[in-house]
Protein backbone atom coordinates (compact mmCIF):
# COMPACT_ATOMS: atom_id res chain seq x y z
CA UNK A 1 0.00 0.00 0.00
CA UNK A 2 1.33 3.44 -0.90
CA UNK A 3 1.44 5.91 1.95
CA UNK A 4 1.85 9.68 1.77
CA UNK A 5 4.77 10.41 -0.51
CA UNK A 6 5.78 13.87 0.57
CA UNK A 7 8.43 14.55 3.15
CA UNK A 8 7.38 16.90 5.89
CA UNK A 9 9.63 18.58 8.43
CA UNK A 10 7.12 17.96 11.16
CA UNK A 11 3.44 17.28 11.75
CA UNK A 12 1.30 19.66 13.76
CA UNK A 13 -2.27 18.90 14.71
CA UNK A 14 -4.74 21.58 15.79
CA UNK A 15 -8.10 20.75 17.33
CA UNK A 16 -9.40 24.01 18.81
CA UNK A 17 -11.96 25.87 16.70
CA UNK A 18 -10.22 29.25 16.75
CA UNK A 19 -6.79 27.71 16.09
CA UNK A 20 -8.16 25.80 13.10
CA UNK A 21 -9.91 28.89 11.82
CA UNK A 22 -6.69 30.90 12.11
CA UNK A 23 -4.87 28.18 10.17
CA UNK A 24 -7.47 28.18 7.41
CA UNK A 25 -7.05 31.92 7.01
CA UNK A 26 -3.25 31.80 7.01
CA UNK A 27 -2.02 32.46 3.44
CA UNK A 28 1.16 30.53 4.16
CA UNK A 29 -0.72 27.22 4.30
CA UNK A 30 -1.55 25.52 1.01
CA UNK A 31 -3.22 22.36 -0.15
CA UNK A 32 -0.33 21.41 -2.38
CA UNK A 33 0.90 18.57 -0.21
CA UNK A 34 1.66 15.07 -1.36
CA UNK A 35 2.09 15.96 -4.99
CA UNK A 36 2.07 12.42 -6.24
CA UNK A 37 -1.25 11.64 -4.64
CA UNK A 38 -2.78 14.69 -6.29
CA UNK A 39 -0.88 14.55 -9.56
CA UNK A 40 -0.11 11.57 -11.79
CA UNK A 41 -3.64 10.88 -12.90
CA UNK A 42 -5.52 11.99 -9.82
CA UNK A 43 -8.73 13.82 -10.52
CA UNK A 44 -7.47 16.78 -8.47
CA UNK A 45 -4.33 17.52 -10.50
CA UNK A 46 -4.23 21.29 -11.11
CA UNK A 47 -7.77 22.01 -9.94
CA UNK A 48 -8.80 25.09 -8.02
CA UNK A 49 -8.82 23.29 -4.67
CA UNK A 50 -5.14 22.44 -5.01
CA UNK A 51 -3.94 25.77 -6.44
CA UNK A 52 -2.52 28.47 -4.26
CA UNK A 53 -2.00 32.22 -4.29
CA UNK A 54 -2.54 34.16 -7.50
CA UNK A 55 -3.82 31.24 -9.59
CA UNK A 56 -6.26 30.20 -6.90
CA UNK A 57 -7.67 33.70 -6.52
CA UNK A 58 -8.01 34.14 -10.29
CA UNK A 59 -9.91 30.86 -10.65
CA UNK A 60 -12.19 31.59 -7.72
CA UNK A 61 -13.03 35.05 -9.08
CA UNK A 62 -14.50 33.65 -12.26
CA UNK A 63 -16.00 30.54 -10.72
CA UNK A 64 -17.63 32.37 -7.83
CA UNK A 65 -19.79 34.19 -10.39
CA UNK A 66 -21.82 30.99 -10.60
CA UNK A 67 -22.75 31.17 -6.92
CA UNK A 68 -24.36 34.62 -6.75
CA UNK A 69 -27.54 34.95 -4.66
CA UNK A 70 -29.77 35.53 -7.68
CA UNK A 71 -28.48 32.31 -9.25
CA UNK A 72 -28.92 30.42 -5.99
CA UNK A 73 -32.52 31.63 -5.72
CA UNK A 74 -33.18 30.50 -9.29
CA UNK A 75 -31.90 27.03 -8.49
CA UNK A 76 -33.70 26.78 -5.17
CA UNK A 77 -37.05 28.28 -6.11
CA UNK A 78 -37.43 27.31 -9.73
CA UNK A 79 -35.09 24.72 -11.21
CA UNK A 80 -34.72 22.33 -8.28
CA UNK A 81 -38.35 22.09 -7.11
CA UNK A 82 -39.36 21.18 -10.66
CA UNK A 83 -37.11 18.14 -10.71
CA UNK A 84 -37.14 17.26 -7.02
CA UNK A 85 -40.63 15.89 -6.73
CA UNK A 86 -40.62 14.31 -10.19
CA UNK A 87 -37.47 12.40 -9.31
CA UNK A 88 -38.69 11.43 -5.85
CA UNK A 89 -41.88 10.00 -7.36
CA UNK A 90 -39.75 7.79 -9.60
CA UNK A 91 -37.02 6.94 -7.10
CA UNK A 92 -39.36 6.21 -4.19
CA UNK A 93 -41.78 3.94 -6.01
CA UNK A 94 -42.07 1.34 -3.26
CA UNK A 95 -41.90 1.35 0.54
CA UNK A 96 -38.21 0.41 0.73
CA UNK A 97 -35.39 2.52 -0.73
CA UNK A 98 -31.71 3.36 -0.27
CA UNK A 99 -31.73 6.96 0.94
CA UNK A 100 -28.08 7.51 0.02
CA UNK A 101 -28.63 6.33 -3.56
CA UNK A 102 -31.74 8.53 -3.81
CA UNK A 103 -29.82 11.53 -2.47
CA UNK A 104 -27.00 11.01 -4.94
CA UNK A 105 -29.38 11.11 -7.89
CA UNK A 106 -31.15 14.21 -6.55
CA UNK A 107 -27.88 16.03 -5.99
CA UNK A 108 -26.21 15.11 -9.27
CA UNK A 109 -28.95 16.76 -11.32
CA UNK A 110 -28.21 20.31 -10.28
CA UNK A 111 -24.51 19.64 -9.78
CA UNK A 112 -24.34 18.70 -13.46
CA UNK A 113 -26.22 21.84 -14.41
CA UNK A 114 -23.86 24.05 -12.42
CA UNK A 115 -20.76 22.23 -13.63
CA UNK A 116 -21.83 22.52 -17.28
CA UNK A 117 -22.57 18.87 -17.99
CA UNK A 118 -25.64 18.47 -20.17
CA UNK A 119 -27.93 15.72 -18.89
CA UNK A 120 -31.61 14.82 -19.16
CA UNK A 121 -32.90 15.44 -15.63
CA UNK A 122 -35.59 12.78 -16.08
CA UNK A 123 -33.33 10.03 -17.47
CA UNK A 124 -32.45 7.84 -14.50
CA UNK A 125 -29.89 5.82 -16.45
CA UNK A 126 -27.97 8.98 -17.32
CA UNK A 127 -28.17 10.29 -13.76
CA UNK A 128 -26.98 6.98 -12.30
CA UNK A 129 -24.09 6.88 -14.74
CA UNK A 130 -23.02 10.33 -13.58
CA UNK A 131 -23.32 9.18 -9.97
CA UNK A 132 -20.89 6.33 -10.70
CA UNK A 133 -18.36 8.88 -11.95
CA UNK A 134 -18.97 11.02 -8.88
CA UNK A 135 -18.25 8.03 -6.67
CA UNK A 136 -14.93 7.38 -8.42
CA UNK A 137 -13.95 11.04 -8.29
CA UNK A 138 -14.93 11.25 -4.62
CA UNK A 139 -12.54 8.47 -3.83
CA UNK A 140 -9.86 10.32 -5.76
CA UNK A 141 -10.45 13.52 -3.86
CA UNK A 142 -10.17 11.67 -0.55
CA UNK A 143 -7.17 9.59 -1.59
CA UNK A 144 -5.20 10.59 1.48
CA UNK A 145 -7.76 8.76 3.63
CA UNK A 146 -8.06 5.80 1.28
CA UNK A 147 -7.07 2.37 2.49
CA UNK A 148 -5.80 1.51 -1.01
CA UNK A 149 -4.54 4.63 -2.83
CA UNK A 150 -3.15 2.65 -5.76
CA UNK A 151 -6.54 1.13 -6.47
CA UNK A 152 -8.12 4.57 -6.25
CA UNK A 153 -5.67 5.98 -8.78
CA UNK A 154 -6.56 3.24 -11.24
CA UNK A 155 -10.27 3.67 -10.64
CA UNK A 156 -10.05 7.41 -11.29
CA UNK A 157 -7.95 6.96 -14.42
CA UNK A 158 -10.46 4.52 -15.89
CA UNK A 159 -13.46 6.70 -15.03
CA UNK A 160 -11.87 9.94 -16.16
CA UNK A 161 -11.25 8.81 -19.73
CA UNK A 162 -14.88 7.83 -20.30
CA UNK A 163 -16.19 10.86 -18.45
CA UNK A 164 -14.25 13.22 -20.65
CA UNK A 165 -15.23 11.44 -23.85
CA UNK A 166 -18.90 10.83 -23.17
CA UNK A 167 -19.88 13.81 -21.02
CA UNK A 168 -17.48 16.71 -21.04
CA UNK A 169 -16.56 16.76 -24.71
CA UNK A 170 -20.14 17.01 -26.02
CA UNK A 171 -20.96 19.72 -23.47
CA UNK A 172 -17.69 21.50 -24.31
CA UNK A 173 -18.34 21.48 -28.05
CA UNK A 174 -21.83 22.91 -27.59
CA UNK A 175 -20.59 25.70 -25.37
CA UNK A 176 -17.60 26.49 -27.56
CA UNK A 177 -19.96 27.01 -30.50
CA UNK A 178 -22.18 29.32 -28.46
CA UNK A 179 -19.22 31.31 -27.20
CA UNK A 180 -17.92 31.69 -30.73
CA UNK A 181 -21.34 32.91 -31.84
CA UNK A 182 -21.32 35.45 -29.04
CA UNK A 183 -17.84 36.63 -29.94
CA UNK A 184 -18.80 37.19 -33.56
CA UNK A 185 -21.88 39.13 -32.51
CA UNK A 186 -24.58 36.69 -33.50
CA UNK A 187 -25.51 35.64 -29.96
CA UNK A 188 -26.35 37.89 -27.00
CA UNK A 189 -24.38 37.49 -23.77
CA UNK A 190 -27.44 36.57 -21.75
CA UNK A 191 -28.05 33.63 -24.11
CA UNK A 192 -24.83 31.95 -23.04
CA UNK A 193 -25.07 29.11 -20.51
CA UNK A 194 -24.27 30.04 -16.93
CA UNK A 195 -22.09 27.27 -15.57
CA UNK A 196 -18.53 26.45 -14.61
CA UNK A 197 -17.52 24.97 -17.96
CA UNK A 198 -18.81 28.02 -19.81
CA UNK A 199 -16.91 30.54 -17.69
CA UNK A 200 -13.75 28.45 -17.91
CA UNK A 201 -13.99 28.34 -21.70
CA UNK A 202 -14.72 32.07 -21.92
CA UNK A 203 -11.65 32.96 -19.83
CA UNK A 204 -9.36 30.12 -20.81
CA UNK A 205 -6.86 32.36 -22.56
CA UNK A 206 -6.13 34.32 -19.39
CA UNK A 207 -2.67 33.07 -18.36
CA UNK A 208 -3.40 33.76 -14.68
CA UNK A 209 -5.89 30.89 -14.72
CA UNK A 210 -3.40 28.27 -15.98
CA UNK A 211 -6.09 26.48 -17.99
CA UNK A 212 -4.20 25.94 -21.23
CA UNK A 213 -4.11 22.23 -20.41
CA UNK A 214 -7.40 20.73 -21.65
CA UNK A 215 -7.28 18.07 -18.98
CA UNK A 216 -7.21 20.71 -16.30
CA UNK A 217 -10.49 22.19 -17.57
CA UNK A 218 -12.05 18.73 -17.57
CA UNK A 219 -10.84 18.04 -14.05
CA UNK A 220 -12.17 21.40 -12.83
CA UNK A 221 -15.61 20.51 -14.19
CA UNK A 222 -15.39 17.06 -12.62
CA UNK A 223 -14.52 18.69 -9.31
CA UNK A 224 -17.66 20.79 -9.31
CA UNK A 225 -19.77 17.82 -10.35
CA UNK A 226 -18.34 15.70 -7.57
CA UNK A 227 -18.32 18.46 -4.98
CA UNK A 228 -21.92 19.35 -5.68
CA UNK A 229 -23.12 15.76 -5.42
CA UNK A 230 -21.25 13.63 -2.98
CA UNK A 231 -21.17 15.80 0.10
CA UNK A 232 -24.85 16.70 -0.23
CA UNK A 233 -25.78 13.04 -0.50
CA UNK A 234 -23.62 12.10 2.49
CA UNK A 235 -25.15 14.94 4.49
CA UNK A 236 -28.64 13.63 3.71
CA UNK A 237 -27.72 10.17 4.98
CA UNK A 238 -26.05 11.62 8.06
CA UNK A 239 -29.00 13.91 8.75
CA UNK A 240 -31.43 11.04 8.91
CA UNK A 241 -29.01 8.87 10.84
CA UNK A 242 -28.97 11.59 13.50
CA UNK A 243 -32.71 12.29 13.25
CA UNK A 244 -33.67 8.64 13.65
CA UNK A 245 -31.49 8.38 16.73
CA UNK A 246 -32.88 11.60 18.21
CA UNK A 247 -36.45 10.67 17.33
CA UNK A 248 -36.21 7.71 19.69
CA UNK A 249 -36.17 10.08 22.67
CA UNK A 250 -37.81 13.15 21.08
CA UNK A 251 -40.61 11.96 18.77
CA UNK A 252 -42.01 14.34 16.20
CA UNK A 253 -38.77 15.56 14.62
CA UNK A 254 -39.54 14.03 11.22
CA UNK A 255 -42.96 15.65 11.22
CA UNK A 256 -41.39 18.94 12.20
CA UNK A 257 -38.98 18.75 9.25
CA UNK A 258 -41.89 17.99 6.94
CA UNK A 259 -43.71 21.11 8.07
CA UNK A 260 -40.90 23.57 8.72
CA UNK A 261 -38.20 24.35 6.16
CA UNK A 262 -36.41 26.58 8.64
CA UNK A 263 -36.08 23.61 11.01
CA UNK A 264 -34.96 21.35 8.16
CA UNK A 265 -32.15 23.78 7.45
CA UNK A 266 -31.11 23.79 11.11
CA UNK A 267 -31.05 19.99 10.96
CA UNK A 268 -28.70 20.19 7.98
CA UNK A 269 -26.39 22.66 9.72
CA UNK A 270 -26.27 20.61 12.92
CA UNK A 271 -25.56 17.50 10.83
CA UNK A 272 -22.71 19.24 9.08
CA UNK A 273 -21.30 20.34 12.42
CA UNK A 274 -21.28 16.84 13.87
CA UNK A 275 -20.46 14.94 10.67
CA UNK A 276 -18.10 17.10 8.55
CA UNK A 277 -17.38 15.63 5.14
CA UNK A 278 -13.67 16.14 5.82
CA UNK A 279 -13.22 15.47 9.53
CA UNK A 280 -9.51 16.25 9.35
CA UNK A 281 -8.31 18.79 6.83
CA UNK A 282 -4.66 18.90 5.82
CA UNK A 283 -2.46 21.81 4.87
CA UNK A 284 1.21 22.30 4.00
CA UNK A 285 3.24 25.22 5.30
CA UNK A 286 4.79 26.94 2.28
CA UNK A 287 6.82 29.19 4.63
CA UNK A 288 7.58 29.55 8.33
CA UNK A 289 4.52 30.92 10.09
CA UNK A 290 2.88 31.22 13.50
CA UNK A 291 -0.69 30.09 14.01
CA UNK A 292 -2.44 30.87 17.28
CA UNK A 293 0.88 30.88 19.09
CA UNK A 294 2.11 27.65 17.45
CA UNK A 295 5.35 27.90 15.51
CA UNK A 296 4.82 26.17 12.16
CA UNK A 297 8.05 25.61 10.20
CA UNK A 298 8.16 25.55 6.43
CA UNK A 299 7.14 22.17 4.95
CA UNK A 300 5.18 21.15 8.03
CA UNK A 301 2.08 19.03 7.60
CA UNK A 302 -0.70 20.77 9.50
CA UNK A 303 -3.68 18.61 10.39
CA UNK A 304 -6.86 20.48 11.26
CA UNK A 305 -9.25 18.36 13.29
CA UNK A 306 -12.53 20.01 12.30
CA UNK A 307 -14.59 17.27 13.92
CA UNK A 308 -13.10 18.24 17.29
CA UNK A 309 -13.18 21.97 16.62
CA UNK A 310 -16.89 21.69 15.85
CA UNK A 311 -17.45 20.37 19.36
CA UNK A 312 -15.96 23.32 21.20
CA UNK A 313 -18.25 23.78 24.23
CA UNK A 314 -17.33 27.44 24.45
CA UNK A 315 -18.93 28.03 21.06
CA UNK A 316 -21.53 25.31 20.65
CA UNK A 317 -22.81 24.88 24.18
CA UNK A 318 -22.21 22.65 27.17
CA UNK A 319 -23.34 19.50 25.38
CA UNK A 320 -21.69 19.83 21.96
CA UNK A 321 -21.85 16.09 21.20
CA UNK A 322 -25.63 16.10 21.24
CA UNK A 323 -27.63 16.51 18.04
CA UNK A 324 -29.67 19.64 18.74
CA UNK A 325 -30.73 21.66 15.69
CA UNK A 326 -32.27 24.25 18.00
CA UNK A 327 -29.08 24.90 19.96
CA UNK A 328 -28.24 28.52 20.61
CA UNK A 329 -25.03 29.66 18.89
CA UNK A 330 -23.56 33.15 18.69
CA UNK A 331 -24.42 34.47 15.19
CA UNK A 332 -20.75 35.25 14.54
CA UNK A 333 -20.07 31.47 14.51
CA UNK A 334 -21.42 29.39 11.61
CA UNK A 335 -23.89 26.78 12.82
CA UNK A 336 -22.03 24.26 10.66
CA UNK A 337 -18.76 25.08 12.38
CA UNK A 338 -15.74 24.50 10.15
CA UNK A 339 -17.41 21.91 7.93
CA UNK A 340 -17.33 24.11 4.85
CA UNK A 341 -13.80 25.16 5.68
CA UNK A 342 -12.89 28.82 6.04
CA UNK A 343 -10.55 31.25 4.43
CA UNK A 344 -9.64 31.30 0.77
CA UNK A 345 -10.48 27.62 0.20
CA UNK A 346 -13.89 27.66 1.86
CA UNK A 347 -16.36 25.57 -0.11
CA UNK A 348 -17.79 27.65 -2.97
CA UNK A 349 -20.97 25.56 -2.93
CA UNK A 350 -21.72 26.02 0.76
CA UNK A 351 -24.72 28.26 0.11
CA UNK A 352 -26.05 25.93 -2.57
CA UNK A 353 -26.06 22.93 -0.27
CA UNK A 354 -26.47 24.54 3.16
CA UNK A 355 -28.07 27.86 2.32
CA UNK A 356 -27.45 31.18 4.01
CA UNK A 357 -26.87 31.37 7.77
CA UNK A 358 -30.13 31.13 9.69
CA UNK A 359 -31.06 34.22 11.74
CA UNK A 360 -30.18 34.18 15.42
CA UNK A 361 -33.78 34.83 16.35
CA UNK A 362 -37.05 34.06 14.67
CA UNK A 363 -37.60 32.82 11.16
CA UNK A 364 -35.62 33.65 8.07
CA UNK A 365 -36.89 36.29 5.67
CA UNK A 366 -38.30 33.89 3.07
CA UNK A 367 -38.09 36.47 0.32
CA UNK A 368 -34.29 36.72 0.50
CA UNK A 369 -33.20 33.67 2.36
CA UNK A 370 -31.59 30.66 0.76
CA UNK A 371 -32.37 27.48 2.69
CA UNK A 372 -30.06 25.19 0.74
CA UNK A 373 -30.89 22.25 -1.47
CA UNK A 374 -30.26 19.63 1.20
CA UNK A 375 -32.89 21.23 3.47
CA UNK A 376 -35.39 21.06 0.61
CA UNK A 377 -34.56 17.39 0.09
CA UNK A 378 -34.87 16.68 3.82
CA UNK A 379 -38.30 18.31 3.93
CA UNK A 380 -39.58 16.41 0.92
CA UNK A 381 -38.50 12.97 2.06
CA UNK A 382 -39.98 13.72 5.48
CA UNK A 383 -43.27 14.55 3.80
CA UNK A 384 -43.19 11.06 2.35
CA UNK A 385 -43.06 9.60 5.85
CA UNK A 386 -39.45 8.41 5.99
CA UNK A 387 -38.53 6.01 8.77
CA UNK A 388 -35.74 3.54 9.57
CA UNK A 389 -35.76 0.15 7.88
CA UNK A 390 -35.71 -2.42 10.68
CA UNK A 391 -34.79 -5.23 8.27
CA UNK A 392 -31.65 -3.71 6.70
CA UNK A 393 -28.74 -1.98 8.40
CA UNK A 394 -27.04 1.11 6.98
CA UNK A 395 -23.53 0.44 5.71
CA UNK A 396 -20.61 2.79 6.20
CA UNK A 397 -18.13 3.30 3.38
CA UNK A 398 -15.27 1.08 4.49
CA UNK A 399 -12.96 2.20 1.70
CA UNK A 400 -12.09 5.30 3.66
CA UNK A 401 -10.93 6.26 7.14
CA UNK A 402 -13.52 9.07 7.24
CA UNK A 403 -16.28 8.23 9.68
CA UNK A 404 -18.83 10.45 7.97
CA UNK A 405 -19.29 8.47 4.76
CA UNK A 406 -22.00 5.95 3.94
CA UNK A 407 -22.16 3.31 1.24
CA UNK A 408 -25.90 2.73 1.64
CA UNK A 409 -28.69 3.83 3.96
CA UNK A 410 -31.86 1.68 3.69
CA UNK A 411 -35.06 3.38 4.79
CA UNK A 412 -38.80 2.91 4.42
CA UNK A 413 -41.52 5.32 3.39
CA UNK A 414 -45.14 5.51 4.46
CA UNK A 415 -46.04 7.35 1.28
CA UNK A 416 -44.40 6.78 -2.09
CA UNK A 417 -44.78 7.09 -5.86
CA UNK A 418 -47.90 9.13 -6.61
CA UNK A 419 -47.92 10.55 -3.11
CA UNK A 420 -48.78 14.02 -4.33
Amino acid at each position, binding site marked *: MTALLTEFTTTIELDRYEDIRAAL*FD*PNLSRTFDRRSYAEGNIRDGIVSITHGTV*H*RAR*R*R*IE*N*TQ*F*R*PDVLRLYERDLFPRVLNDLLDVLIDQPAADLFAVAEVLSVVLAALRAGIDVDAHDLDQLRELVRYVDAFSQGSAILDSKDPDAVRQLVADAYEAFERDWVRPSWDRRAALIEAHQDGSLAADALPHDILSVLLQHRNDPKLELADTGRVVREVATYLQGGTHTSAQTMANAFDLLFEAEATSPGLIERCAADLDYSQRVVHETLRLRPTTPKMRRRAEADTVIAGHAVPKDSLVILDAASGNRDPGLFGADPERFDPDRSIDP*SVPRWGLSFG*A*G*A*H*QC*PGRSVAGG*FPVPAHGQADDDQHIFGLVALEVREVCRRGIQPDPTRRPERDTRTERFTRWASYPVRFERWSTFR
Partner: protein
Amino acid sequence: MAVEVSVDPELCIGSGDCTRIAPAVFHLDEDQGVSVARPAGVAATDVQVLLQAARGCPTQAIRVVRDGTVIHGSN
Protein backbone atom coordinates in the same frame (compact mmCIF):
# COMPACT_ATOMS: atom_id res chain seq x y z
CA MET B 1 -15.94 59.09 14.15
CA ALA B 2 -14.68 58.72 10.58
CA VAL B 3 -14.69 55.20 9.22
CA GLU B 4 -13.18 54.13 5.92
CA VAL B 5 -13.46 50.74 4.27
CA SER B 6 -11.47 49.40 1.35
CA VAL B 7 -11.21 46.08 -0.45
CA ASP B 8 -7.90 44.91 -1.87
CA PRO B 9 -8.77 43.77 -5.42
CA GLU B 10 -5.65 41.59 -5.54
CA LEU B 11 -6.83 39.54 -2.57
CA CYS B 12 -10.59 39.55 -3.14
CA ILE B 13 -12.01 36.41 -4.76
CA GLY B 14 -15.56 37.67 -5.12
CA SER B 15 -17.10 35.24 -2.63
CA GLY B 16 -19.84 37.77 -1.92
CA ASP B 17 -19.99 37.11 1.83
CA CYS B 18 -19.52 40.83 2.51
CA THR B 19 -22.40 41.78 0.21
CA ARG B 20 -24.71 39.59 2.23
CA ILE B 21 -23.52 40.89 5.63
CA ALA B 22 -23.41 44.57 4.66
CA PRO B 23 -25.31 45.03 1.40
CA ALA B 24 -25.39 48.81 1.76
CA VAL B 25 -21.61 48.88 1.79
CA PHE B 26 -20.32 46.18 -0.55
CA HIS B 27 -21.26 45.34 -4.08
CA LEU B 28 -19.65 43.07 -6.62
CA ASP B 29 -18.05 44.51 -9.71
CA GLU B 30 -18.95 41.69 -12.08
CA ASP B 31 -16.47 42.85 -14.71
CA GLN B 32 -13.57 42.43 -12.28
CA GLY B 33 -15.12 39.73 -10.11
CA VAL B 34 -14.27 41.60 -6.91
CA SER B 35 -16.11 43.49 -4.20
CA VAL B 36 -16.07 47.26 -3.94
CA ALA B 37 -17.00 49.38 -0.90
CA ARG B 38 -19.40 52.31 -1.24
CA PRO B 39 -18.41 55.27 1.00
CA ALA B 40 -22.03 56.35 1.45
CA GLY B 41 -22.93 52.89 2.66
CA VAL B 42 -19.99 52.85 5.06
CA ALA B 43 -21.17 56.03 6.76
CA ALA B 44 -24.63 54.56 7.29
CA THR B 45 -23.47 51.20 8.67
CA ASP B 46 -22.61 50.24 12.22
CA VAL B 47 -18.89 49.64 12.56
CA GLN B 48 -19.56 46.24 14.20
CA VAL B 49 -21.27 45.11 11.00
CA LEU B 50 -18.29 46.32 9.00
CA LEU B 51 -15.97 44.37 11.28
CA GLN B 52 -18.16 41.27 10.92
CA ALA B 53 -17.84 41.52 7.16
CA ALA B 54 -14.10 42.09 7.41
CA ARG B 55 -13.57 39.19 9.78
CA GLY B 56 -15.60 36.89 7.55
CA CYS B 57 -13.78 37.78 4.33
CA PRO B 58 -12.14 34.52 3.23
CA THR B 59 -9.00 36.22 1.95
CA GLN B 60 -8.92 39.06 4.51
CA ALA B 61 -9.17 41.58 1.70
CA ILE B 62 -11.21 44.14 3.68
CA ARG B 63 -9.53 46.91 5.61
CA VAL B 64 -11.41 49.02 8.14
CA VAL B 65 -9.94 52.29 9.37
CA ARG B 66 -11.49 54.37 12.15
CA ASP B 67 -10.24 57.87 12.83
CA GLY B 68 -7.02 57.08 11.00
CA THR B 69 -6.31 53.84 12.87
CA VAL B 70 -6.53 50.46 11.16
CA ILE B 71 -8.93 48.37 13.25
CA HIS B 72 -9.02 45.44 10.84
CA GLY B 73 -6.67 44.49 8.06
CA SER B 74 -3.09 45.29 7.28
CA ASN B 75 -1.49 48.73 7.57
